[in-house]
């Protein structure tokens, strides 16, 4: 073999190796097309879940999977999330608003065929409240009489907690005080039952402790419209239509594949390649391009969350109300919205998003540089003279940086205040927040349930989420008064007064209300814009767009 021959052969081998890598190169039926045909929904849900146990799940995104596998006493209306019958076919509320009685339907079943009973709910709530389980969301059960005391270990007797089951199909809950949003609260996954009473959990570890391994494929028993089929960590969670679900006849989807894609760019590429019906998010930089080129797949829904800055009011300079108000008034929110927010977010001067549980926020902080300068002068820092520099702390993200830079410039221009930007990785920021080791802190708050209390309660002086050192007795009193006011309209008015007080004291600077920006294939029907991004799956349909 001479040299030329050798190189020819080598080249040939090379080409063969390369072509062997490529499949039969023709476009295939995409996952979305196949899904439309077989009624399989492909949904991107962001990072993988830590656990499928509804009592231990913490992330807001966990709801997307858990709501397929479990169902509480009540469910949500697909359009406005108002309470709809779930395991309970009906319920009664006593005149004083303190006692809720739920009547369970006879045909509610666990996925192993056992009936779902009142005892299941009680055993589940006992588990959530047990101090040993360390359920992050246990506090959502605190409106119930004696629940907090039981959770804090002040009593070991669960009978003292306001839960009762007069018979196997009746659940009675007695509250500590009237809680007008109690039915909204019940929609949170921490209230959903797990099969404790049917002695399933104890096979896989201690029931009221972490590390129980029941919530895995093969062993997870749920009562929702779907059952768990597969969970490949870091890839996907597959659920299939449940045969035992009481309303199975109305469930239109045969399966849902939840794709745990933790990179928004990868998710967007997967959507374009036809692998996903719905994405969890969309990279900010791509929103404008979709708006122009593919508006039919772009969706911007309102979302129950607020982007704001916390102010550490324990520090000199920032402990002055006038200074804090000046900082807030000096921000041109319209300009922020026009040039920096591409996802349709609404710039805001209030904390609670309008419409939360029928609530109308007060007038809020407007943009008024003249008033801001006057306030600063009143506080003795006219034109920013003698004002110490302020540090804005945020976790590293492009989005936070551009907003912080804009605000830095507005404070410099309008008030003559020197703001410095400081960025850290997320957990370090959270640590600085707990330690009170910040001046101005970039923050966000997502409501747990659709009621203004989910927002306003964090500013109570005893709230673990306050972090600003701002404590105001009048504010606490107003919130207390609101919880004691049975009349819904009067209660909302009290909350409005509370928020007015909060904003006038400005321990926070509201900036904008979130939106949920995502991509969705036209074949998905029944995916309504809801404030909490909840979409009861039994109302979701897929139409076969390719069918003639």
């Amino acid at each position, binding site marked *: 073999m001479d040299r030329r021959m050798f190189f020819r052969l080598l080249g040939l081998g090379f080409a063969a190796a390369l072509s062997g890598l490529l499949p039969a190169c023709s476009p295939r039926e995409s996952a979305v097309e196949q899904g439309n045909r077989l009624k399989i929904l492909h949904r991107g849900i962001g990072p993988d879940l830590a656990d499928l146990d509804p009592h231990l799940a913490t992330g807001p995104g966990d709801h997307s999977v858990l709501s397929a596998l479990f169902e509480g006493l009540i469910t949500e209306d697909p359009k406005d999330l108002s309470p709809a019958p779930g395991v309970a076919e009906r319920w009664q509320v006593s005149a004083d608003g303190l006692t809720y009685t739920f009547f369970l339907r006879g045909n509610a079943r666990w996925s192993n065929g056992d009936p779902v009973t009142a005892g299941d709910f009680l055993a589940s709530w006992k588990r959530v409240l047990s101090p*040993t389980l*360390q359920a992050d969301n246990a506090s959502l059960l605190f409106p119930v009489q004696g629940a907090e005391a039981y959770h804090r270990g002040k009593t070991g007797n669960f009978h003292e907690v306001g839960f009762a089951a007069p018979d196997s199909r009746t659940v009675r809950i007695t509250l500590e005080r009237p809680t007008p949003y109690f039915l909204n609260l019940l929609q949170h996954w921490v209230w959903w039952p797990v099969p404790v009473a049917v002695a399933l959990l104890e096979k896989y570890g201690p029931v009221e402790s972490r590390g129980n391994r029941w919530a895995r494929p093969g062993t997870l028993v749920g009562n929702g419209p779907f059952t768990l089929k597969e969970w490949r960590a870091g890839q996907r969670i597959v659920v299939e239509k449940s045969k035992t679900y009481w309303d199975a006849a109305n469930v239109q989807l045969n399966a849902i594949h939840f794709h745990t894609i933790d990179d928004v760019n990868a998710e967007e590429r997967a959507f374009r390649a036809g692998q996903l019906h719905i994405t969890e998010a969309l990279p900010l930089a791509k929103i404008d391009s979709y708006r122009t080129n593919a508006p039919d797949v772009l969706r911007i829904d309102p979302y129950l969350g607020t982007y704001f800055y916390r102010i550490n009011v324990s520090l000199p300079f920032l402990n002055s109300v006038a200074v804090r108000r000046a900082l807030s008034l000096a921000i041109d929110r319209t300009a922020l919205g026009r040039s920096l927010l591409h996802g349709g977010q609404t710039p805001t001067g209030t904390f609670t998003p309008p419409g939360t549980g029928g609530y109308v926020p007060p007038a809020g902080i407007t943009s008024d540089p003249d008033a801001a300068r006057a306030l600063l002068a009143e506080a003795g820092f006219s034109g920013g003279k003698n004002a110490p520099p302020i540090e804005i702390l945020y976790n590293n993200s492009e989005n936070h940086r551009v907003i912080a830079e804009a605000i830095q410039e507005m404070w410099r221009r309008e008030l003559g205040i020197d703001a410095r930007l400081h960025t850290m990785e997320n957990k370090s920021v959270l640590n600085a927040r707990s330690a009170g080791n910040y001046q101005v802190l970039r923050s966000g708050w997502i409501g747990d349930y659709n009621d203004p209390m989910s927002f306003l309660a964090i500013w109570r002086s005893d709230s*673990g989420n306050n972090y600003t050192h701002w404590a105001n007795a009048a504010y606490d009193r107003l919130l207390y008064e609101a919880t004691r006011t049975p009349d819904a309209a009067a209660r909302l008015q009290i909350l409005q007064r509370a928020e007015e007080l909060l904003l006038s004291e400005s321990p926070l600077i509201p900036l904008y209300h979130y939106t949920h920006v995502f991509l969705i294939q036209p074949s998905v029907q029944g995916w309504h814009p809801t404030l909490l991004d909840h979409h009861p799956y039994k109302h979701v349909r897929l139409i076969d767009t390719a069918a003639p």
Partner: protein
Amino acid sequence: MFRFFASRLLQSALALLIIITATFFMLRFVPGGPFTAEKAVTPEILRNLEAHYGLNQPLWKQYADYLGSLLRGDFGPSFKYPNRTVNEILGDKLPVSLELGSLSLLLALLMGIPLGIIAATRRNSWIDYCASTFGMTGLSVPTFVVAPLLVLALSIHMGWFNASGWYSPEDRVLPSLVLGFAYAAPISRLTRGGMLEILSQDFIRTARAKGASELRIIFKHCLRGGLLPVVSYLGPAIAGILTGSFVIETIFQIPGLGREFVNSAFNRDYTLVLGTVILYAALIMVLNLAADVAQAWMNPKVRLAR
């Protein structure tokens, strides 16, 4: 030979202990902990959580306990995933990274070595320039540019492959190609350099004078010496390629160890960080040892028992 292995093994064990100790304590000095979350939990819950995982013990005790469980082969529970252990997670993810790594490595060698040989034997011809261009491109264009471009062309426009995922055999093609390409470039450069050096030596001229065919010269006389630089490069490179690439795994959403390695640090999942670090360190040590042995076998000038 035995003394060489024994001393290397001892050195490695010591290095591993230092790595474990440093990682263990450095992790604890980083602000924030596994249960630092966006929304506050009650102090009772936090206390109970810390007690459950033994985080309320003095640090030296936690360290001693950790070493103890390591000796039993137990990497402990994951803090982030309450119902999974670190052993399970590593057992899940390592095979994925190994598979991707082996495929990429195979591709890298198949592309890099022939290209390097051709470039060396046809020095300053168009084929040499092509190979050099390939080498420079591979070195200078990062994978996070190549990968999305390939996805754009072959997944989104042609519809041949999935843009991400790790389910079917087709899903292996794009990630292996991109990662293989990144490693093929330096391999082809090193092969070319090594071959050129050998080709210019007297014994090659002698072989040619004696009428040996070009193939015989390349494969019999040149290759063994010419590949030495590649072999010493491959030790650490294989460790890097097998333990996964954060970038490739993120772009293609591959459930490998590389992503876990980075994310566990962000999550402050102490045990998972330690588990991945120990695994990486051990792999690198073993592969470096293997590279040393291979080099000694290929090059009589290197002696194991020095």
